[in-house]
Protein backbone atom coordinates (compact mmCIF):
# COMPACT_ATOMS: atom_id res chain seq x y z
CA UNK A 1 0.00 0.00 0.00
CA UNK A 2 1.56 3.31 0.95
CA UNK A 3 0.20 6.59 -0.29
CA UNK A 4 -2.11 9.24 1.05
CA UNK A 5 -4.53 6.94 2.89
CA UNK A 6 -1.99 4.63 4.53
CA UNK A 7 -1.86 6.41 7.86
CA UNK A 8 -1.19 3.53 10.27
CA UNK A 9 1.82 4.32 12.44
CA UNK A 10 2.50 7.76 10.99
CA UNK A 11 3.91 10.26 13.45
CA UNK A 12 3.30 13.98 13.66
CA UNK A 13 -0.49 14.06 13.90
CA UNK A 14 -0.62 15.36 17.46
CA UNK A 15 -2.59 14.25 20.50
CA UNK A 16 -5.99 12.58 20.67
CA UNK A 17 -8.79 14.12 22.73
CA UNK A 18 -11.78 12.77 24.66
CA UNK A 19 -14.72 12.08 22.31
CA UNK A 20 -17.21 14.94 22.31
CA UNK A 21 -20.65 14.08 23.65
CA UNK A 22 -23.73 14.40 21.43
CA UNK A 23 -21.89 15.05 18.22
CA UNK A 24 -24.32 15.39 15.28
CA UNK A 25 -24.09 12.71 12.56
CA UNK A 26 -23.34 15.42 10.00
CA UNK A 27 -21.57 18.52 11.29
CA UNK A 28 -22.99 20.60 8.42
CA UNK A 29 -25.88 19.93 6.03
CA UNK A 30 -23.61 19.59 2.97
CA UNK A 31 -21.91 16.60 4.59
CA UNK A 32 -25.13 14.60 4.55
CA UNK A 33 -25.76 15.57 0.91
CA UNK A 34 -22.19 14.62 -0.08
CA UNK A 35 -22.55 11.30 1.76
CA UNK A 36 -25.80 10.43 -0.03
CA UNK A 37 -24.67 11.68 -3.45
CA UNK A 38 -21.53 9.57 -3.22
CA UNK A 39 -23.44 6.48 -2.14
CA UNK A 40 -25.89 6.84 -5.02
CA UNK A 41 -23.43 7.82 -7.74
CA UNK A 42 -21.19 4.88 -6.90
CA UNK A 43 -24.04 2.64 -7.99
CA UNK A 44 -24.44 4.53 -11.29
CA UNK A 45 -21.00 3.57 -12.55
CA UNK A 46 -20.80 -0.21 -12.50
CA UNK A 47 -22.32 -1.95 -9.55
CA UNK A 48 -21.74 -0.51 -6.13
CA UNK A 49 -17.99 -0.95 -6.29
CA UNK A 50 -16.71 0.08 -2.86
CA UNK A 51 -13.19 -0.88 -3.83
CA UNK A 52 -13.18 1.45 -6.83
CA UNK A 53 -14.40 4.19 -4.51
CA UNK A 54 -11.61 3.50 -2.01
CA UNK A 55 -9.12 3.41 -4.88
CA UNK A 56 -10.37 6.88 -5.88
CA UNK A 57 -9.85 8.12 -2.32
CA UNK A 58 -6.30 6.74 -2.46
CA UNK A 59 -5.54 8.84 -5.54
CA UNK A 60 -6.50 12.20 -4.04
CA UNK A 61 -3.89 14.85 -3.39
CA UNK A 62 -3.22 15.96 0.19
CA UNK A 63 -5.59 18.94 0.12
CA UNK A 64 -8.39 16.94 -1.48
CA UNK A 65 -7.87 14.13 1.02
CA UNK A 66 -7.43 16.08 4.25
CA UNK A 67 -8.56 19.70 3.95
CA UNK A 68 -12.24 19.12 3.17
CA UNK A 69 -12.73 16.52 5.92
CA UNK A 70 -14.19 13.04 5.63
CA UNK A 71 -17.23 13.84 3.51
CA UNK A 72 -15.26 16.34 1.46
CA UNK A 73 -12.88 13.52 0.61
CA UNK A 74 -15.90 11.41 -0.39
CA UNK A 75 -17.12 14.22 -2.63
CA UNK A 76 -13.74 14.55 -4.32
CA UNK A 77 -13.43 10.79 -4.86
CA UNK A 78 -16.99 10.65 -6.22
CA UNK A 79 -16.14 13.37 -8.72
CA UNK A 80 -13.04 11.43 -9.78
CA UNK A 81 -15.19 8.34 -10.44
CA UNK A 82 -17.83 10.36 -12.27
CA UNK A 83 -15.34 12.09 -14.58
CA UNK A 84 -13.37 8.90 -15.26
CA UNK A 85 -16.53 7.13 -16.34
CA UNK A 86 -17.64 10.00 -18.55
CA UNK A 87 -20.75 10.82 -16.56
CA UNK A 88 -19.48 14.32 -15.74
CA UNK A 89 -17.05 16.46 -17.69
CA UNK A 90 -13.86 17.47 -15.96
CA UNK A 91 -14.43 20.88 -14.39
CA UNK A 92 -18.23 20.60 -14.55
CA UNK A 93 -18.70 20.74 -10.79
CA UNK A 94 -16.38 23.71 -10.37
CA UNK A 95 -18.06 25.58 -13.22
CA UNK A 96 -21.48 25.05 -11.68
CA UNK A 97 -20.16 25.98 -8.25
CA UNK A 98 -18.83 29.28 -9.60
CA UNK A 99 -22.14 30.03 -11.28
CA UNK A 100 -23.86 29.32 -7.98
CA UNK A 101 -21.83 32.10 -6.40
CA UNK A 102 -22.70 34.50 -9.19
CA UNK A 103 -19.81 34.19 -11.62
CA UNK A 104 -20.33 34.10 -15.37
CA UNK A 105 -18.67 30.81 -16.19
CA UNK A 106 -19.13 28.58 -19.17
CA UNK A 107 -20.02 24.99 -18.35
CA UNK A 108 -18.38 22.13 -20.26
CA UNK A 109 -20.73 19.95 -22.35
CA UNK A 110 -21.66 16.54 -20.99
CA UNK A 111 -19.16 13.94 -22.27
CA UNK A 112 -19.83 10.53 -23.81
CA UNK A 113 -20.18 8.02 -20.97
CA UNK A 114 -17.33 5.51 -20.86
CA UNK A 115 -18.42 3.32 -18.01
CA UNK A 116 -16.38 0.18 -17.30
CA UNK A 117 -17.72 -2.91 -19.04
CA UNK A 118 -18.13 -4.75 -15.79
CA UNK A 119 -20.79 -6.20 -13.53
CA UNK A 120 -20.40 -7.80 -10.13
CA UNK A 121 -21.48 -11.44 -9.83
CA UNK A 122 -23.45 -10.68 -6.66
CA UNK A 123 -24.14 -7.87 -4.21
CA UNK A 124 -21.59 -7.04 -1.52
CA UNK A 125 -18.05 -8.33 -1.17
CA UNK A 126 -18.36 -11.78 0.42
CA UNK A 127 -17.88 -14.68 -1.98
CA UNK A 128 -17.62 -18.45 -1.75
CA UNK A 129 -14.12 -19.80 -2.38
CA UNK A 130 -14.06 -23.39 -3.57
CA UNK A 131 -10.56 -24.41 -2.54
CA UNK A 132 -9.83 -25.04 1.13
CA UNK A 133 -8.07 -22.21 2.99
CA UNK A 134 -4.29 -22.37 2.65
CA UNK A 135 -3.81 -21.48 6.33
CA UNK A 136 -5.54 -22.52 9.54
CA UNK A 137 -5.88 -20.99 12.98
CA UNK A 138 -2.50 -20.95 14.72
CA UNK A 139 -0.42 -21.03 11.54
CA UNK A 140 2.53 -18.66 11.36
CA UNK A 141 2.37 -16.39 8.32
CA UNK A 142 4.32 -13.47 6.90
CA UNK A 143 2.86 -10.56 4.96
CA UNK A 144 4.61 -9.90 1.65
CA UNK A 145 7.46 -7.46 2.16
CA UNK A 146 7.47 -5.49 -1.07
CA UNK A 147 3.78 -4.67 -1.31
CA UNK A 148 3.37 -1.81 -3.76
CA UNK A 149 0.23 0.23 -4.31
CA UNK A 150 -1.38 -2.70 -6.14
CA UNK A 151 -1.85 -4.30 -2.70
CA UNK A 152 -4.68 -1.89 -1.94
CA UNK A 153 -5.54 -3.23 1.52
CA UNK A 154 -2.11 -4.06 2.92
CA UNK A 155 -0.79 -1.17 5.02
CA UNK A 156 2.94 -0.55 4.99
CA UNK A 157 3.26 -1.18 8.72
CA UNK A 158 2.36 -4.87 8.26
CA UNK A 159 4.54 -5.55 5.20
CA UNK A 160 7.13 -8.24 5.81
CA UNK A 161 5.91 -8.83 9.38
CA UNK A 162 5.25 -12.26 10.84
CA UNK A 163 2.11 -13.12 12.79
CA UNK A 164 -0.33 -15.90 13.63
CA UNK A 165 -3.67 -16.69 12.03
CA UNK A 166 -6.36 -15.99 14.66
CA UNK A 167 -9.50 -16.52 12.56
CA UNK A 168 -10.36 -17.71 9.08
CA UNK A 169 -12.95 -15.23 7.82
CA UNK A 170 -15.47 -15.69 5.00
CA UNK A 171 -14.06 -15.40 1.48
CA UNK A 172 -14.04 -11.97 -0.15
CA UNK A 173 -13.63 -10.73 -3.67
CA UNK A 174 -10.13 -9.30 -4.06
CA UNK A 175 -10.20 -5.49 -3.75
CA UNK A 176 -6.98 -5.10 -5.74
CA UNK A 177 -8.51 -6.27 -9.02
CA UNK A 178 -12.10 -5.33 -8.20
CA UNK A 179 -11.09 -1.69 -7.63
CA UNK A 180 -9.89 -1.54 -11.23
CA UNK A 181 -12.96 -3.38 -12.61
CA UNK A 182 -10.66 -6.27 -13.56
CA UNK A 183 -12.44 -9.18 -11.91
CA UNK A 184 -13.50 -10.40 -8.50
CA UNK A 185 -10.87 -13.12 -7.94
CA UNK A 186 -12.34 -14.26 -4.61
CA UNK A 187 -9.86 -15.26 -1.93
CA UNK A 188 -9.81 -16.52 1.60
CA UNK A 189 -9.34 -13.84 4.23
CA UNK A 190 -7.58 -14.32 7.55
CA UNK A 191 -7.43 -12.25 10.71
CA UNK A 192 -3.73 -12.31 11.51
CA UNK A 193 -2.44 -11.39 14.95
CA UNK A 194 0.83 -9.51 15.34
CA UNK A 195 2.80 -8.64 18.43
CA UNK A 196 3.46 -4.91 18.73
CA UNK A 197 7.23 -5.47 18.95
CA UNK A 198 7.17 -7.32 15.63
CA UNK A 199 5.50 -4.27 14.09
CA UNK A 200 7.23 -1.39 15.84
CA UNK A 201 10.41 -2.73 17.43
CA UNK A 202 11.52 -3.75 20.91
CA UNK A 203 10.63 -0.43 22.56
CA UNK A 204 6.97 -0.55 21.48
CA UNK A 205 4.09 -0.51 23.95
CA UNK A 206 3.14 -4.15 24.60
CA UNK A 207 -0.09 -5.02 22.77
CA UNK A 208 -1.53 -7.32 20.14
CA UNK A 209 -2.98 -6.27 16.79
CA UNK A 210 -5.09 -8.14 14.29
CA UNK A 211 -5.62 -7.17 10.69
CA UNK A 212 -7.44 -8.95 7.87
CA UNK A 213 -5.16 -10.35 5.19
CA UNK A 214 -6.18 -11.60 1.76
CA UNK A 215 -4.63 -14.96 0.84
CA UNK A 216 -2.29 -13.45 -1.77
CA UNK A 217 -0.91 -11.06 0.88
CA UNK A 218 0.55 -13.95 2.88
CA UNK A 219 3.30 -16.55 2.70
CA UNK A 220 3.99 -19.32 5.19
CA UNK A 221 6.47 -18.54 7.96
CA UNK A 222 8.18 -21.11 10.13
Amino acid at each position, binding site marked *: *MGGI*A*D*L*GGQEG*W*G*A*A*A*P*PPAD*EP*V*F*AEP*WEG*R*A*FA*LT*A*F*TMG*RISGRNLDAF*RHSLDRL*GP*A*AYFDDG*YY*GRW*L*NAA*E*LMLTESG*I*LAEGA*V*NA*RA*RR*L*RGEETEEPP*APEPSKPDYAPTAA*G*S*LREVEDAPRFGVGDRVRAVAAAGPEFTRL*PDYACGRTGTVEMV*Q*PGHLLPDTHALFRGENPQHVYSVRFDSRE*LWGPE*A*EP*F*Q*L*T*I*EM*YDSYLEPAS
Partner: protein
Amino acid sequence: MTTQYDPADLGTERLSPALRTEALEQLLTERGLVQTDVIDGFVAKYESDVGPLNGARVVARAWVDPEYKARLLKNGTEAIKEVAWGGGANGEHIVVVENTPTRHNVVVCTLCSCYPWPVLGLPPSWYKDPVYRARVVREPRTVLAEMGLELDDDVEIVVRDSSSEVRWLVLPERPAGTEGLSEEELVPLIGRDALVGVAKVAAP
Protein backbone atom coordinates in the same frame (compact mmCIF):
# COMPACT_ATOMS: atom_id res chain seq x y z
CA MET B 1 -0.59 6.00 -5.82
CA THR B 2 1.25 8.75 -7.58
CA THR B 3 -1.89 10.54 -8.76
CA GLN B 4 -2.57 13.73 -6.86
CA TYR B 5 -6.11 14.44 -7.90
CA ASP B 6 -7.70 17.58 -6.50
CA PRO B 7 -10.89 18.55 -8.31
CA ALA B 8 -11.50 21.56 -6.05
CA ASP B 9 -8.21 23.26 -6.89
CA LEU B 10 -8.62 26.31 -9.13
CA GLY B 11 -4.94 27.24 -8.86
CA THR B 12 -5.61 30.43 -6.94
CA GLU B 13 -8.11 28.98 -4.49
CA ARG B 14 -9.93 25.78 -3.48
CA LEU B 15 -13.69 25.84 -3.80
CA SER B 16 -15.51 24.94 -0.60
CA PRO B 17 -16.99 21.45 -0.34
CA ALA B 18 -20.38 22.94 0.60
CA LEU B 19 -20.59 24.86 -2.67
CA ARG B 20 -19.26 21.95 -4.71
CA THR B 21 -21.74 19.54 -3.12
CA GLU B 22 -24.60 21.83 -4.10
CA ALA B 23 -23.20 22.02 -7.63
CA LEU B 24 -22.85 18.24 -7.89
CA GLU B 25 -26.37 17.69 -6.63
CA GLN B 26 -27.75 20.12 -9.24
CA LEU B 27 -25.84 18.47 -12.07
CA LEU B 28 -26.89 14.95 -11.12
CA THR B 29 -30.49 15.97 -10.52
CA GLU B 30 -30.71 17.69 -13.92
CA ARG B 31 -29.42 14.52 -15.54
CA GLY B 32 -32.00 12.42 -13.70
CA LEU B 33 -29.29 10.42 -11.94
CA VAL B 34 -30.49 11.27 -8.43
CA GLN B 35 -33.71 12.62 -6.99
CA THR B 36 -33.85 15.20 -4.26
CA ASP B 37 -36.44 13.37 -2.17
CA VAL B 38 -34.46 10.13 -2.33
CA ILE B 39 -31.38 11.99 -1.13
CA ASP B 40 -33.44 13.57 1.66
CA GLY B 41 -34.68 10.16 2.77
CA PHE B 42 -31.22 8.61 2.72
CA VAL B 43 -29.76 11.42 4.82
CA ALA B 44 -32.64 11.19 7.30
CA LYS B 45 -32.21 7.43 7.60
CA TYR B 46 -28.58 7.78 8.68
CA GLU B 47 -29.33 10.77 10.89
CA SER B 48 -32.05 9.07 12.90
CA ASP B 49 -32.62 5.35 12.19
CA VAL B 50 -29.18 3.80 11.75
CA GLY B 51 -27.19 4.62 14.83
CA PRO B 52 -25.51 3.28 17.95
CA LEU B 53 -28.85 2.53 19.59
CA ASN B 54 -28.89 -0.68 17.54
CA GLY B 55 -25.53 -1.72 18.99
CA ALA B 56 -26.66 -0.78 22.50
CA ARG B 57 -29.70 -3.04 22.18
CA VAL B 58 -27.50 -5.93 21.07
CA VAL B 59 -25.17 -5.44 24.04
CA ALA B 60 -27.98 -5.10 26.58
CA ARG B 61 -29.50 -8.37 25.33
CA ALA B 62 -26.12 -10.11 25.62
CA TRP B 63 -25.72 -8.85 29.19
CA VAL B 64 -29.04 -10.32 30.36
CA ASP B 65 -29.20 -13.47 28.22
CA PRO B 66 -26.15 -15.78 28.37
CA GLU B 67 -27.41 -17.95 25.52
CA TYR B 68 -27.81 -14.91 23.29
CA LYS B 69 -24.32 -13.77 24.27
CA ALA B 70 -22.88 -17.14 23.25
CA ARG B 71 -24.63 -16.90 19.86
CA LEU B 72 -23.44 -13.31 19.43
CA LEU B 73 -19.80 -14.18 20.06
CA LYS B 74 -20.02 -17.21 17.78
CA ASN B 75 -21.82 -15.58 14.83
CA GLY B 76 -22.25 -11.85 15.30
CA THR B 77 -23.89 -11.14 11.96
CA GLU B 78 -26.76 -13.57 12.53
CA ALA B 79 -27.26 -12.86 16.24
CA ILE B 80 -27.43 -9.11 15.61
CA LYS B 81 -30.39 -9.67 13.29
CA GLU B 82 -32.35 -11.16 16.20
CA VAL B 83 -32.29 -7.77 17.92
CA ALA B 84 -31.68 -5.04 15.36
CA TRP B 85 -31.41 -4.36 11.65
CA GLY B 86 -28.33 -6.14 10.26
CA GLY B 87 -26.55 -6.68 6.96
CA GLY B 88 -26.23 -4.12 4.20
CA ALA B 89 -23.30 -1.87 3.52
CA ASN B 90 -20.55 -2.13 6.09
CA GLY B 91 -22.35 -4.95 7.87
CA GLU B 92 -21.91 -8.01 5.68
CA HIS B 93 -19.89 -9.84 8.32
CA ILE B 94 -19.67 -8.51 11.87
CA VAL B 95 -17.45 -10.15 14.46
CA VAL B 96 -18.20 -9.39 18.12
CA VAL B 97 -15.32 -9.48 20.60
CA GLU B 98 -15.70 -9.33 24.36
CA ASN B 99 -13.86 -6.95 26.64
CA THR B 100 -13.04 -8.36 30.08
CA PRO B 101 -11.13 -7.13 33.15
CA THR B 102 -7.93 -8.51 31.59
CA ARG B 103 -8.44 -8.02 27.84
CA HIS B 104 -9.44 -4.87 25.99
CA ASN B 105 -10.31 -4.74 22.28
CA VAL B 106 -10.28 -1.46 20.38
CA VAL B 107 -11.29 -1.01 16.73
CA VAL B 108 -9.83 1.16 13.96
CA CYS B 109 -9.57 1.31 10.18
CA THR B 110 -6.18 2.80 9.31
CA LEU B 111 -6.71 2.81 5.52
CA CYS B 112 -10.09 4.55 5.40
CA SER B 113 -12.71 4.60 8.15
CA CYS B 114 -14.52 1.24 7.86
CA TYR B 115 -17.05 0.96 10.66
CA PRO B 116 -20.02 -1.35 11.41
CA TRP B 117 -22.78 0.94 10.12
CA PRO B 118 -25.82 -1.28 10.88
CA VAL B 119 -25.06 -1.39 14.59
CA LEU B 120 -23.25 1.92 15.17
CA GLY B 121 -24.36 4.26 12.38
CA LEU B 122 -21.84 6.46 10.65
CA PRO B 123 -18.46 6.92 12.33
CA PRO B 124 -17.87 9.81 14.74
CA SER B 125 -15.31 12.51 13.98
CA TRP B 126 -12.55 11.09 16.18
CA TYR B 127 -12.72 7.69 14.43
CA LYS B 128 -12.10 9.37 11.06
CA ASP B 129 -9.39 11.66 12.40
CA PRO B 130 -5.83 10.99 11.14
CA VAL B 131 -4.67 11.20 14.77
CA TYR B 132 -6.67 8.10 15.69
CA ARG B 133 -6.03 6.23 12.44
CA ALA B 134 -2.28 6.83 12.63
CA ARG B 135 -1.62 6.30 16.31
CA VAL B 136 -3.98 3.71 17.79
CA VAL B 137 -2.14 0.92 15.92
CA ARG B 138 1.19 2.10 17.30
CA GLU B 139 0.59 3.32 20.85
CA PRO B 140 -2.96 2.33 21.81
CA ARG B 141 -2.48 2.63 25.55
CA THR B 142 -1.29 6.22 25.18
CA VAL B 143 -4.06 7.13 22.73
CA LEU B 144 -6.76 5.61 24.93
CA ALA B 145 -5.43 7.55 27.92
CA GLU B 146 -5.53 10.78 25.91
CA MET B 147 -9.14 9.95 25.06
CA GLY B 148 -9.95 9.49 28.73
CA LEU B 149 -9.61 5.73 29.21
CA GLU B 150 -6.78 4.69 31.52
CA LEU B 151 -6.15 0.94 31.43
CA ASP B 152 -4.14 -0.92 34.04
CA ASP B 153 -0.79 -2.26 32.89
CA ASP B 154 -1.95 -5.86 33.29
CA VAL B 155 -4.81 -5.41 30.81
CA GLU B 156 -3.89 -6.87 27.42
CA ILE B 157 -4.85 -4.57 24.54
CA VAL B 158 -5.92 -6.04 21.19
CA VAL B 159 -6.22 -3.53 18.34
CA ARG B 160 -8.49 -4.55 15.45
CA ASP B 161 -7.50 -2.89 12.17
CA SER B 162 -10.49 -3.33 9.81
CA SER B 163 -8.78 -3.79 6.45
CA SER B 164 -11.37 -6.03 4.73
CA GLU B 165 -15.18 -6.17 4.79
CA VAL B 166 -15.07 -7.82 8.22
CA ARG B 167 -16.44 -5.37 10.78
CA TRP B 168 -15.75 -5.46 14.51
CA LEU B 169 -18.10 -4.70 17.40
CA VAL B 170 -16.89 -4.62 20.99
CA LEU B 171 -19.04 -6.22 23.70
CA PRO B 172 -18.06 -4.08 26.68
CA GLU B 173 -18.03 -5.20 30.31
CA ARG B 174 -21.27 -4.80 32.19
CA PRO B 175 -20.55 -2.26 34.93
CA ALA B 176 -20.80 -3.27 38.58
CA GLY B 177 -23.95 -2.01 40.26
CA THR B 178 -26.25 -2.71 37.32
CA GLU B 179 -27.24 -6.24 38.38
CA GLY B 180 -30.79 -5.17 39.18
CA LEU B 181 -31.44 -3.33 35.91
CA SER B 182 -33.59 -4.74 33.13
CA GLU B 183 -32.56 -4.99 29.50
CA GLU B 184 -34.56 -1.84 28.71
CA GLU B 185 -32.93 0.05 31.57
CA LEU B 186 -29.45 -1.00 30.45
CA VAL B 187 -29.81 0.23 26.86
CA PRO B 188 -29.46 3.98 27.55
CA LEU B 189 -26.27 3.40 29.57
CA ILE B 190 -24.46 1.93 26.57
CA GLY B 191 -22.74 4.56 24.46
CA ARG B 192 -21.10 4.25 21.09
CA ASP B 193 -17.56 4.87 22.34
CA ALA B 194 -17.62 1.70 24.49
CA LEU B 195 -18.73 -0.33 21.47
CA VAL B 196 -15.61 0.73 19.56
CA GLY B 197 -13.42 0.22 22.62
CA VAL B 198 -12.32 3.77 23.50
CA ALA B 199 -14.46 3.95 26.66
CA LYS B 200 -16.09 1.73 29.27
CA VAL B 201 -19.75 1.68 30.17
CA ALA B 202 -20.38 3.44 33.47
CA ALA B 203 -23.10 2.57 35.98
CA PRO B 204 -25.79 5.27 36.32
